[in-house]
């Protein structure tokens, strides 16, 4: 089938920063993203798990954006500003998409 080149950006960020990130994405004209839950993890600041948590200050989510390659830099800059002083991981992968007119 006909596919088109795109970039898949996955940003793992603290839940408490989620809204700030998605608002920054929207300001950078990123119109589509999905948010996946993360159950736990480990990093330089120790390991964590969401089980039994009621705290709003812990835990992370993964925000996924599929975008046209030429829009990547604007997205990364917007994301970086939010992620900069916080913990979090940003990865970019090459991918192909169906229905490119959507992006």
């Amino acid at each position, binding site marked *: 089938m006909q596919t088109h080149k795109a970039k898949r950006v996955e940003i793992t960020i603290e839940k408490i920063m989620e809204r700030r990130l998605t608002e920054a994405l929207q300001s950078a004209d990123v119109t589509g993203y999905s948010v996946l839950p993360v159950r736990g993890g480990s990093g330089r600041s120790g390991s964590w*798990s969401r089980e039994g948590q009621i705290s709003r200050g812990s835990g992370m989510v993964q925000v996924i954006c599929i975008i046209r390659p030429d829009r990547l830099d604007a997205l990364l800059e917007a994301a970086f500003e939010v992620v900069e002083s916080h913990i979090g991981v940003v990865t970019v992968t090459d991918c192909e998409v169906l229905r490119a007119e959507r992006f």
Partner: protein
Amino acid sequence: MLQLAADNLLSPIVLSFVLGLFAALARSDLSVPEAAAKALSLYLLFAIGFKGGVAVSDHGIDAKLGAALLAGVVLSFALPLVAFGYLRAISGMNRTDAAAVAGHYGSISIVTFVAGSSVLSDAGIVAEGYMVAVAAAMEAPAILSALWLVSRGSAGGQRMNAELWHEILLNGSIVLLLGSFAIGWITGAEGLAKIESFIVSPFQGVLCIFLLDMGLIAGRGLREGSKVLDAGAIGFGLTMPLAGAAAGLGMGLLLGLSTGGVMLLMVLSASASYIAVPAAMRVALPEANPSIYLTLSLAVTFPFNLTVGIPLYLAAAQWATGG
């Protein structure tokens, strides 16, 4: 007093907490799903707020309400300053971490408040219903003190922006607590009659499961976080509540609260936040180490208050008010 302490230690509530603590320390896979834990906390907030509101509607609004709210705000602002100085003196913690911790101790833990209320009602002592509103009022000011402590002289003001203000003042717990307080107040005894068998009868049982979960989290916190705490910090976590309680006692007597009211103000002052303040700190002070403040608040101070603190504060309040 000793009897009271023993009764408290051997109550289903405290033992449930101990069970959770034990399970986590023994690395059992016992766990409460996150959604269930959140649902339990919604229940507790709704119930405690509602019952507070009904109490106010029953006994009429007290002239002291305004003064009590103000006292709570003052305590919340002031206690972090004490905590900060004490912590810097007693432990090797850096300024940022110490300020973050201090913010937690000015603010309050609503579960500690719930546990205290539950001991009170077991003892047949009635407290001012509006103490729930005082609890809500004490949540936020301490955050400002903490941020001020960290940025004295420097341009730290920008750490607080409109968005963070909004998040703190309208965080879910505060809105639910004050909202259900208002509902209880409006609907009064008649409203309570309708939902009594939901928010009153099963309350202590639900609290057991909630404290089981708190024990699990505290235990996990201890395992993860004990390495980040030095002896000074642990000492702080065990003695700062006493300082807070003393301040609460003084303030409560000054206001002329009832025995129960004094005791609850002591509990609030002695307790350390683990919901609102950690969230605010992650946003405004991301460089502070969350392991430190979460472990201290949840795994040192909370168990201390639950087991030793609460009966102690009750005894002190009874002694001081002659009640």
